[in-house]
């Protein structure tokens, strides 16, 4: 167990170091750091001062150490566009993205599991086939296009939902939250469904596959033979056994949702960090790009680590496999 956690910790650390190297060299070797990190509107004197201040006259490895040292202190430089600390700008946008991602996550579970369960229990019914066909569609639909179509139908043609923005939000414990107001909820609905679409398909497929496997197991046959009601068999025996893999995958998908919110946020003009990064790339606001990449790497590594460890606690076979390999 401890070896497992140590190994995962080491791996996570290595990932962060590797990614910091990639980002650093991406900026310093592929691009010109003077262009990337220093505001192009500076004059010659300011430019030289900035080069000194950023340590760009030092050898590369020293620059990297400076970069790491600053990054550890949360200093990624100032945004060219907003003139504020890049890290601060991103962190301000995090709650909006997380709200969107979690809503989508919950939606995918609430919608996906019952549909997958149904498709798994009655694989030959036409409803199941429709569900599975829909899930293939869900994998193939371009998220951004679905978003546009949703705006067209619900905002432009029917006029029932607002097309863009976040709407009215409440501040609770320093966090801005929009799902507690009616207006905020209306704004949240479309982006969340849009983001959840792919995950709903995934959950349906996972649940269906798990159900079909579990139903054939002896203990389920036995439970039926004992005369337990179908409902009880499904709720207790089937659901319990498919939940672990489904929940793990969903946990890992949280990171994916955060990454894909880039698309949804752009379509619906949702003021999260994904919208910020796209705007920054287009406006060449490099400090924000660098900070975003490092933060997202850190988030991913943390999510993966937590899910891995939780999973190994839930399912001891994972640890054993790891020892064997």
């Amino acid at each position, binding site marked *: 167990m401890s070896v497992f956690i140590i190994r995962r910790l080491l*791996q996570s650390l*290595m*990932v962060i170091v*590797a990614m910091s190297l*990639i*980002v650093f060299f*991406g*900026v310093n070797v*592929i*691009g010109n750091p003077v262009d990337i990190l220093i505001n192009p509107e500076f004059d010659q004197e300011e430019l030289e001062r900035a080069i000194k201040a950023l340590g760009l006259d030092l050898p590369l490895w020293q620059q990297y150490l400076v970069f790491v040292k600053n990054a550890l202190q949360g200093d990624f430089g100032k945004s060219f566009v907003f003139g504020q600390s890049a890290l601060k700008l991103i962190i301000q946008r995090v709650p909006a993205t997380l709200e969107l991602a979690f809503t989508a996550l919950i939606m995918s579970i609430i919608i996906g599991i019952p549909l997958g369960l149904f498709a798994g229990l009655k694989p030959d019914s036409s409803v199941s086939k429709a569900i599975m066909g829909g899930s*293939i*569609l869900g*994998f*193939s*639909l*371009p*998220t*951004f*296009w679905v978003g*546009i*179509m949703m*705006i*067209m139908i619900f*905002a*432009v*043609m029917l006029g029932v939902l607002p*097309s863009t923005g976040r709407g009215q939000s409440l501040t609770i414990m320093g966090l801005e939250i929009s799902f507690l107001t009616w207006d905020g909820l209306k704004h949240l609905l479309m982006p969340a469904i849009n983001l959840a679409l792919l995950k709903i398909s995934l959950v349906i497929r996972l649940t269906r596959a798990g159900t079909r496997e579990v139903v054939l197991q002896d203990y389920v046959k036995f439970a039926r033979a004992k005369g337990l009601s179908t409902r009880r068999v499904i709720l207790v025996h089937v659901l319990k056994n498919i939940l672990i893999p489904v929940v793990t995958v969903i946990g890992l998908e949280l*990171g*994916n949702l955060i*990454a*894909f919110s*880039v*698309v949804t946020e*752009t*379509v619906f003009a949702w003021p999260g960090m994904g919208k910020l*990064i*796209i705007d920054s*790339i*287009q406006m060449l606001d490099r400090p924000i*790009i660098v900070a975003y*990449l490092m933060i*997202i*790497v850190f988030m*991913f*590594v943390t999510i*993966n680590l937590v899910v891995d460890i939780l999973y190994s606690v839930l399912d001891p076979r994972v640890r054993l496999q790891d020892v064997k390999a």
Partner: protein
Amino acid sequence: MSVTSKIELIPELSAEVALEGETSLRRFVSDFTENKVAVGALMVFLAIVFVAVFASLISPQNPYDLAEIDILNGRLPPRSESMSGTTYWLGTDDQGRDMLSAIFYGLRTSLGVGAMSGFIALCIGTCIGLTAAYFGGRVDSLIMRLVDLQLSFPAILIALMLLAVLGKGVEKIIIALIAVQWAYYARTVRGSALVERSKDYIEAAHCLAFSNRRIVFRHLMPNVLPPLIVVGTVQVAHAILLESTLSFLGIGLPVTEPSLGLLIANGFEYMLSGKYWISFFPGVALLITVVSINLVGDQLRDVLNPRLRR
């Protein structure tokens, strides 16, 4: 003991066995055609490839020849006629381009970028995966660390990172798509190569003193390619989708190479005034392309993986 008794030939037996083996290709075809939806999807996909390849011959107009388009024909709804009398079946965009022609050209760009990046990624991933599996040890664990590292991040994020550093351009998005895909191929190839490598025919090849290169490329590789077909079809669909997404976000292809994603993005701003067709039809084309590839890929996987067959 009759140690030196003569060895007889057994022709009847082998002829019988031969019949069973000779039909494996035919069986593959019949298994595949069992699913009518997949056959339909394959037809659709072939039609799309045809349209993409011959876009310049079958399009009603060349949408990027400024002599052929007229801004006065801009934003016409579907089935309206131009001043010169041609019918725009899918309407026109803000520049007065025939959407049907723009979609044909867009398909060419989207499929081209998807197929090219997929092919190069397949070659790179196969070589890397084979190297990892064949040499094992440190080489293997180093490569697999890298693969795991990359696969723990969503594709869109990797592409975003690269494009943020590289900038826009056809070759840049191809590089980004290759970087996103190679790891899937490498992992698939390594997995099946590890299984194959432990088989005796590889050891026999060692015994026959063949060079490592010969063993890897002549003996190992042909046996690890089949699972790649499945990964390949799915990956091309992913690549096309990812490219259109990135182009939509404005960080993919430049406006001079309009793929379907860019067409959709162009129409987005006219959406709110109800001019749906500029975004709608390119999206439908993209959807049909991706769905048909996915359906073909699904059926291929079912046919090639006997475990999933009933």
